[in-house]
């Protein structure tokens, strides 16, 4: 069974017969605001406020005032209905030309990475010369929805023509209809939260509590070291008094992490391993990435950090329990690498989004498993081993936090800068892999190369 055959084999593999010549899509740079814990510094900030702030910081960094960008693409996972044109409204409130077109995108936690991929593809095809990809989420300013009963009454009232009709309709209201529905992250088809889903996968792959805590500790230490070295000075613009990610605990330790009680998979009893320390908290924040053709960047004397080589999306059937909810990248990465004739040994850096420490570790375990490689990935054996010293070296979501749609932009900006620096210091091209899992059993992965 070939690599792309999660279900049915496709003769000839996944490589298209002919790939048309395209030009490069380069990453010029990025900007994000520090991520805040939900209910913290950005409790009163809307998605539009935060996305506008992230855009304005990017515009200031690269002198893009009044520039007409080819297209801006961004999105949010938790979105108010009034924000149907969220990205356009943010652009109109920014220093960009008001003649910049946009589109909103929603692909759960993969939103940010998918906007990068979509705009890079448009640049490669020559449809646009420049693009700003981004994402934003507020878990603080989440939409609160009225009950289905109240919603029907309100809509019927609009349609009613007379006072008696209106009174009759109002009479249908019951006290329970007045209670608002809080937003939830439960999967609609299983009723399980993301954490409970991951707990099943964690148990399946026998990921230990210690391994998860160690990954979380590394994330905090790596992110803290990156701040100390000034790594984020040209990737971030402060916002509302925050100059660093509020979730970062530079002084955390294995002892402190070990003291936390499990919060997911508690029905597993002693086998419950997932705590608030090795799971990402609800977070507010926004990120942006500036993409361009070589010509567009050169004409403006802009830097070029990396190029977007290729990307792949995958999805798994978690509903029937065939695979874990967050395991789609496990299938996407082997397909992408096969198409590019690459192996895991060909990468200088790996950026695997830390939805939970166990998500990363489950993915690594699946790739290192002979049987999984043979039966599910259609390989001769295990897919491969990732050099842990190349994994999330400047920290990831466990330390920075995870404002759903903003995570892709955070990772792409960070990785592009790391690749550029690596190539500059070694004199050889550097290559990086991005992997982001998402709700609904989805995942998007991408390859970047240094410039």
């Amino acid at each position: 069974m070939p690599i792309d055959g999660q279900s049915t084999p496709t003769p000839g593999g996944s490589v298209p017969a002919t790939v048309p010549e395209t030009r490069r899509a380069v990453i010029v740079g990025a900007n994000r605001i520090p991520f805040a814990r939900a209910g913290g510094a950005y409790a009163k900030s809307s998605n539009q406020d935060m996305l506008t702030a992230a855009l304005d910081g990017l515009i200031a960094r690269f002198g893009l005032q009044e520039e007409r960008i080819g297209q801006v693409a961004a999105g949010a996972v938790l979105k108010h209905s009034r924000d149907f044109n969220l990205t356009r409204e943010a652009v109109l409130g920014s220093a960009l030309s008001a003649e910049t077109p946009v589109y909103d995108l929603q692909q759960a936690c993969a939103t940010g990475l998918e906007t990068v991929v979509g705009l890079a593809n448009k640049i490669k095809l020559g449809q646009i010369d420049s693009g700003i990809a981004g994402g934003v989420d507020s878990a603080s300013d989440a939409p609160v929805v009225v009950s289905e009963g109240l919603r029907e009454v309100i809509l019927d009232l609009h349609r009613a023509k007379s006072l008696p009709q209106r009174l009759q309709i109002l009479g249908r209201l019951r006290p329970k209809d007045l209670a608002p529905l809080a937003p939830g992250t439960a999967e609609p088809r299983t009723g399980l939260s993301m954490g409970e889903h991951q707990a099943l996968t964690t148990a399946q792959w026998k990921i230990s509590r210690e391994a998860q805590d160690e990954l979380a500790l590394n994330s905090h230490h790596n992110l803290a070291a990156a701040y100390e070295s000034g790594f984020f000075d040209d990737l971030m613009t402060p916002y509302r008094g925050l100059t660093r990610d509020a979730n970062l605990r530079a002084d955390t330790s294995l002892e402190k992490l070990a003291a936390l009680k499990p919060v997911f998979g508690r029905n597993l009893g002693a086998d419950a391993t997932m705590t608030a320390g090795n799971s990402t908290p609800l977070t507010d924040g926004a990120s942006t990435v500036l993409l361009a053709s070589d010509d567009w960047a050169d004409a403006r004397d802009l830097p070029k950090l990396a190029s977007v080589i290729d990307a792949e999306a995958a999805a798994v059937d978690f509903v029937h329990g065939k695979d874990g909810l967050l395991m789609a990248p496990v299938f996407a990465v082997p397909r992408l690498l096969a198409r590019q004739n690459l192996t895991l040994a060909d990468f200088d850096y790996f950026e695997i989004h830390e939805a939970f420490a166990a998500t990363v570790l489950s993915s690594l375990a699946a790739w290192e498993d002979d049987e999984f490689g043979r039966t599910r990935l259609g390989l001769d054996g295990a897919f491969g081993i990732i050099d842990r010293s190349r994994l999330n070296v400047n920290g990831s979501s466990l330390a920075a936090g995870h404002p759903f749609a903003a995570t892709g932009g955070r990772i792409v900006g960070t990785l592009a800068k790391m690749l550029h620096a690596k190539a500059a210091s070694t004199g050889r091209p550097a290559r990086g892999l991005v992997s982001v899992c998402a709700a609904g059993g989805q995942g998007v992965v991408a390859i970047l190369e240094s410039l």
Partner: protein
Amino acid sequence: MADTYTQLVNSGLGRNLAKKLNLPQPAVLRRYKPGQPLVIGPVVVLGDTPGADKLAAELLSWDLDVRRHAVPAEKLGAIILVLDGLQHPSDLEKPVLAAAGSLRDLRSGGRIITLSHPSAEASSPETAAARQGVDGFLRSLAKELRSGATGNGVLLADGTTTTSPSALGAVRFLLSGRSAFVDGQFLTVSTEDGALPAEPERPLAGKVAVVTGAARGIGAQIARTLHRDGATLILVDIPAAGDQLATVANEVRGTALQLDITGADAGQRIIDHAAQRHGRLDIVVHNAGITRDKLLANMDHTRWNAVININIAAQLRINEALLASEHFRTSPRIVSVASTSGIAGNRGQTNYAASKGGVMGMVRATAPLLASRGGTINAVAPGFIETEMTARIPFAVREVARRLNSLQQGGRPSDVAETIAFLASDAAGGINGEVLRVCGQNLVGA
């Protein structure tokens, strides 16, 4: 906006009351706006030397209403005393008394400008006495002027004349509303370098300028003023001030460079950014600075070092990188922000005054290094300027501090910015190693 008291005494009732009670009556200063005339009303050029004739002819070519003799009762925009031929103190009498007869005709916001030679270069005691006499005369006259009028002097060093490019540049600056808060000061023109701008409204067109500490206050205003004058801007401030920096950058269509200027590689990063984005760097304004006030008896390591590191050590290190850079070779300009505290001293500011005194020492010693590549380095020393920082001074102290100068009010960030923009322009190419005070002729440390 003028401060509340200044507004009050410039309204009908307030004006009468202040007069009767003999209270200070600060005027609303004539400040530069693009498109406004250089000076309002005729300009009288006094003096009978060839230098006076040449200057008068030059001013005529600027379309000014130039007079060689005042017409009684005619309101004047400016009186220029050309004193470049003084050989004995008695030579002062004629031009000075001619000026005296016209003082009452000087308009609000009028200007007195002297042009003379530095006494240090005099060949005889008599000449030196006459030249030094101009200093005392001008500084005293400036204190007698009212209604926002100012008096300043241009000193013409050996080899320069009243029509040297920077002498004309200085006269132009001092006549204009750009010099509103510069009062009782002398500015030395040392060489024939410099040129008047092709576009008077955009004297910095085509220049690439770096401003440190640009996120707020005086730095942000320097950025706005340089942008208005045509410069392309790179705005530098610490990463923690990045959001305000971005706002200023987007306002002036520049680029924001989040950078700690005390970092070892700060100068190189500034040069790299300018080289990559613009292929050149023409102007560097060292504005970033902090205060950590304490009486010396209570001073600690942290307060002392932070002030010295940011206010002077960082400038020295960045200048070293600039002077070594191939991108800073075409008539480069450095302008540093010093302070009157560094001249006169200020209780509780031993660290700050040491750093600002250091800035002035650095400027004088660096001037020859820049001169060798056709460049200049100068400093401005602001007095009491109305900023967020001075707004935190207790009311009574603030109210006294802002009246302690000949203009009886605090200056604005724009006054400092205008002076910096002038010193950064081609018109000031012959002015090097100078410290120009922007203090309304503050009574302390004059």
